[in-house]
């Protein structure tokens, strides 16, 4: 097992290096320098060249890449000219809110999807199962902002129960307690995630139910609820571990669409406004962070699955 994990770690590091080179080159090719945005549209070429030279944007790409990586490893994510703050400060302002929104949605989604998937498998092809499968299918085919729009229409406009905008507070504790504003964004994210998770949970539960050890447990006279809780639940939940690991990037990088729809000042909305303002340092730092998180998420999912599933560990 250790050698497998060591190999995975080495592969992950290679992929991270490769991804960072690719993203850096890509962004550099599209936006060679932020001089235009900083100096304004009427800046003369001579001014732009002088600014580039002063800030190191006229060095060869490789030099720029290594300088950027060096800065990154020392905690300097660059400077956002559009917002007049360091990128790190911008991220730190918003990371708590993004983590809260994505985290609580993920938690709710798992709490709903796990029993739902088991129920669907146990009561297979019943009305409940068919209803749940159809609902999951529709949600799965829907862009997440459309679900958000429907929820806003029904629960914030037609029946004024919730707020159509997410909490604008900068205090994370206030945000957590603000059910009036936060319920709709959380439900939007949670429902979309449940749709995807319950499909996996259902098929994994059906696979486990077909196993011999379930038959043996029932034959031994074990009450059905113990069969479900002691055997089915643990074994069917294994794919969930992978899914949660794969959800890690979204968790930390913020959910772009939902934050934009509900005007929630998280990392996703920061990225969106940086696109509009063409704020290159933020775009670069954010995409790199997202890519690293994807690789780390995959690695965490693999490690967690190896720990959770004895069949892999002892193989």
């Amino acid at each position: 097992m250790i050698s497998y994990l060591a190999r995975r770690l080495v592969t992950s590091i290679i992929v991270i290096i490769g991804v960072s080179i690719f993203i850096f080159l890509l962004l550099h090719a599209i936006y060679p320098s932020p001089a235009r945005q900083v100096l304004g549209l009427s800046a003369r070429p001579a001014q732009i060249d002088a600014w580039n030279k002063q800030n190191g944007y006229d060095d060869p790409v490789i030099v720029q890449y290594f300088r950027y990586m060096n800065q990154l490893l020392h905690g300097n994510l660059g400077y956002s000219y559009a917002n007049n703050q360091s990128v790190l400060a911008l991220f730190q302002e918003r990371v708590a809110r993004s983590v809260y929104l994505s985290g609580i949605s993920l938690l709710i989604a798992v709490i709903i999807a796990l029993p739902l998937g088991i129920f669907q498998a146990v009561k297979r092809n019943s009305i409940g199962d068919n209803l749940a499968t159809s609902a999951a299918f529709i949600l799965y085919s829907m862009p997440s902002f459309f679900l958000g729009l429907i929820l806003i229409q029904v629960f914030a406009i037609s029946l004024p129960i919730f707020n159509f905008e997410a909490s604008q507070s900068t205090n994370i504790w206030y945000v957590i307690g603000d059910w009036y504003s936060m319920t709709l964004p959380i439900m939007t994210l949670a429902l979309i995630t449940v749709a995807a998770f319950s499909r996996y949970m259902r098929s994994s539960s059906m696979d486990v139910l077909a196993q011999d050890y379930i038959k043996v447990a029932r034959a031994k006279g074990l009450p059905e609820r113990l069969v479900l809780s002691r055997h089915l639940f643990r074994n069917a939940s294994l794919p969930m571990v992978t899914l949660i690991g794969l959800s890690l990037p979204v968790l930390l990088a913020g959910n772009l669409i939902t934050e934009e729809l509900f005007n929630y000042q998280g990392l996703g909305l920061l990225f969106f406004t940086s696109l509009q303002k063409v704020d290159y340092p933020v775009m670069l730092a954010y995409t790199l962070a997202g890519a690293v998180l994807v690789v780390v998420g995959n690695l965490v999912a693999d490690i967690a699955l190896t720990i959770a599933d004895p069949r892999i560990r002892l193989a």
Partner: protein
Amino acid sequence: MAMQSSSLPPLDVQRAPEGGEVGAVQSGWRLALREFMSNRLAVIGFAILIFFVLFCFVGPLIYHTNQLATNLSEANQPPSAQHLLGTDSAGFDELGRIMKGGQASLEIGFFAAFVAIVIGTLFGAVSGLIGGFVDSTMMRVVDIFLSIPFLFVVLILAVKFGATVASLSLVIGFFAWQVPARLVRGEVLSLRERDFVLAARTAGASTWRLISKHLIPNALGVVIVNVTFQVADAILAVSYVGFLGFGLHFPNVDWGDQLSDGTTYLQDGYWWLIYPVGACIVLTVMALNFIGDALRDSMDVRLRRR
């Protein structure tokens, strides 16, 4: 070989001279087609898809509307006899706008899927056939692409290059070819040990001939299933990009752009700007998902027949 894999009776049952029945041998593809047609959801999905293609491309020929000249005095009108789904914020007939937007969304969906499949299949086939160090390197490249968050990089490129059908298709397709590449490589890895490949190699077939004439046609099952889901994903991706404001712009339009426009009027109650378009996206993607699921099941039948 008995037909126990399919629940349907054999197509042609002939009587042998000695009595008894002989089931005629079916080609795998015909079996797959029958399995597909027997899946109700798939047929419904296929019908919905054909409906939307006709609606978007043939519709404007029947239901004439002016999509070029704005008419602000008629902006944001509710549905009426003149404008079946009302008008949007620039005075265009909304139903006509949905048709036009659908043209762009469907075109981008199909082209992006096409780009993704072509690149992915070739990449995966070459990687699987050559094997060894080249294969490992190519798969690391795939891993690197897969690690890049799709939406972020598509948005960055769309900001720079976007706003036409061709550029959006290329951008989306370029970050979607990795999954088919992996799938095709897996298929090729198992196919290349088969006898017909050894025979072809012995007969002196070049690598290219092996790939194009033998490997890819036999990996087609996986490719067909994947291309359906690629189209669905591409249509969703376009709607996300359009909703955030980086899709096609005036006077062109796509479904995501229309939703973005409609969201401004959510509180004013102009439902005709939002729900019809959204429903079109959901139905199209659902239809494609139905078809993809059914294709996956029927490809299973085709493989079992082998």
